[in-house]
């Protein structure tokens, strides 16, 4: 733990759009601290407020209440051109009338560097993204992936303390996106600056991030490392949004016991009082097929994927269940099987 102030401190920030009755609260009293050199991701479905939060940090919107600090200095009253942050836009926003080199040099020219320095630093930034050969092209002559890299170089050239990325990979096709994810991570480590990354793709978030903030409806539901969020989701929405999960509704039937709607009573540590409606969550890979297991089910679909198999099952009350098993021996469709649900793999949420 360092004693220097966090790279970004967001304190009780709220933001609404529109007026009067039609006003929409996009961010509700959001607070978060982002550390130096951290790859921090804001993850959530569209409309959750992640892009708005990013734009507030960048300075393109004004906040209604709260404050934002960069390394301890308050910046929320400053216009974008006075904040030590740079943004990579979702649409790249490359200046169409300037060449690639001129685009990348733009911020450097604002900083009153000598012509030689500008050229050198711009060249370095372009080399970092391996676009040096395209220096004299216009953006319209580049492919999507190439434009994306120029946008990155342009934002990194002025060496900001924080880089904000607004779903930068969403316009790329799958293969390119995977390649760029690796490049981005390497760049971030190389440049040694804080990245604040916005995405709705939970797999991307899990791959890249040091920490993730899962957002929904203008609030941060959970903040933690990818592992913590995946293995111990604190909220039903987080559990459902991240990865695959099975959600079984039921009722607390006693201390440490839940009676599921499909009729079976299982052991599950629940905080809720007896009689409360709950949802029990378990990841597909944590359950297992077992002879005489606690949960009877019928196989509806089986797929062999090489190293593992995916089984789609149906419980007594029609609820679907997904099982990921490391076995190559697949039961037949329609076969009656039974499942084991280890209590430590279960998470119980209020319904």
């Amino acid at each position, binding site marked *: 733990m360092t004693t220097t102030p966090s790279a970004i401190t967001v304190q009780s920030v709220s933001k609404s759009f529109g007026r009067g009755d039609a006003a929409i609260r996009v961010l509700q009293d959001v607070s978060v601290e982002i550390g130096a050199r951290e790859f921090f991701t804001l993850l959530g479905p569209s409309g959750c407020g992640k892009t708005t939060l990013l734009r507030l940090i960048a300075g*393109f919107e004004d906040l209604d209440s709260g404050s934002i600090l960069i390394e301890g200095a308050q910046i929320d009253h400053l216009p974008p051109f006075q904040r030590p942050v740079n943004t990579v836009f979702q649409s790249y926003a490359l200046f169409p009338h300037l060449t690639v080199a001129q685009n990348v040099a733009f911020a450097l020219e604002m900083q009153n560097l000598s012509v030689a320095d500008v050229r050198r630093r711009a060249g370095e930034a372009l080399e970092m993204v391996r676009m040096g050969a395209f220096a004299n092209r216009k953006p319209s002559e580049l492919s999507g992936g190439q434009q994306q890299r120029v946008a990155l170089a342009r934002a990194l050239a002025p060496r900001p303390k924080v880089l904000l990325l607004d779903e930068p990979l969403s316009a790329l096709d799958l293969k390119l996106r995977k390649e760029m994810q690796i490049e981005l991570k390497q760049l971030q480590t190389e440049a040694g600056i804080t990245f604040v990354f916005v995405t709705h793709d939970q797999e991307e978030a899990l791959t890249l991030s040091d920490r993730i903030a899962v957002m929904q409806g203008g609030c941060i539901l959970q903040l933690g490392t990818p592992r913590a969020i995946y293995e111990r989701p604190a909220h039903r929405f987080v559990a459902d949004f991240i990865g695959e999960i099975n959600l079984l509704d039921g009722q607390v039937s006693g201390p440490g016991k839940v009676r599921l709607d499909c009729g079976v009573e299982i052991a599950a540590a629940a905080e809720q009082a007896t009689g409360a409606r709950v949802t029990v969550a378990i990841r597909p890979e944590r359950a297992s097929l077992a002879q005489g297991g606690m949960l009877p089910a019928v196989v509806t679909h089986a797929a062999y994927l090489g190293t593992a198999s995916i089984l789609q099952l149906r419980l007594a009350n029609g609820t679907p269940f997904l099982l990921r098993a490391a076995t190559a021996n697949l039961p037949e469709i329609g076969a009656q099987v039974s499942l084991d649900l280890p209590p430590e793999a279960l998470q119980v949420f209020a319904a």
Partner: protein
Amino acid sequence: MNLRRLPFTREISLGVLVYLYVPVVVLIVYSFNANRTATVWTEASLDWYRKILTNPSIRNATWNSLVLATAAGIGSTLLALAAALGMRTRFRGAGLVEAVLNAPLILPEIVVAVATLMLFVAIGIDMGLIAMIPAHIAFCIPFAYLPIKARLEGMGPSLEEAAQDLYANRFVTFRRVTLPLLWPGIMAGFTLAFVTSLDDFLTSFFLSGPGSTTLPVYIFSAIRAGITPEINAISTIMLIVSVALVVTSFLLGKMRR
């Protein structure tokens, strides 16, 4: 079958195009007619063009028209540019403001011309260019405004946000990003405003004084006196100039998509 083709639309359309262009072609052709009596075709000649180039009234009127159109074009384009930039964010009353700015397009020109006359008489300003320039600027504003606004909307806000993000303040952003990208729209707006002022008749008619006749007003008085081939010649020139300017504006609008 071409789904979009409905019977007779092509025939009607070609008929309409003929209807629109034949009179103009006749006019142009007769302007080269050597014979004074415009009905009888003698031979092709540039006599009338020569005559109008040396006619002092025509030269005066041409000069007035050009001065007026340039002043009105520049004035209205600058005002329209500022207005278009200011109208980008949505605010309460934006619809009303746009309605007022576009009002000259909808109001019958004779009513506005006559009312403006009364304004200047009431204030005590004499008829002439001093009165005509502001009046022209006013009704040229919507013609300059629309192409600029269209171009701005096509640009979107992200480019300027990017510039500001990269440490350019508002002034530098405007100079290095907004203005260069907006330029074709500005030129298109100026061209349309220029043409509108050049072609304007009614307002100029009511507001012109001795010595400040414009070309259209001159043509009108000449027509009243009787059809002469000189009128054909001036009209042809005005047509060609207008067409050239409109085509230029059209091409500017298609630039740098």
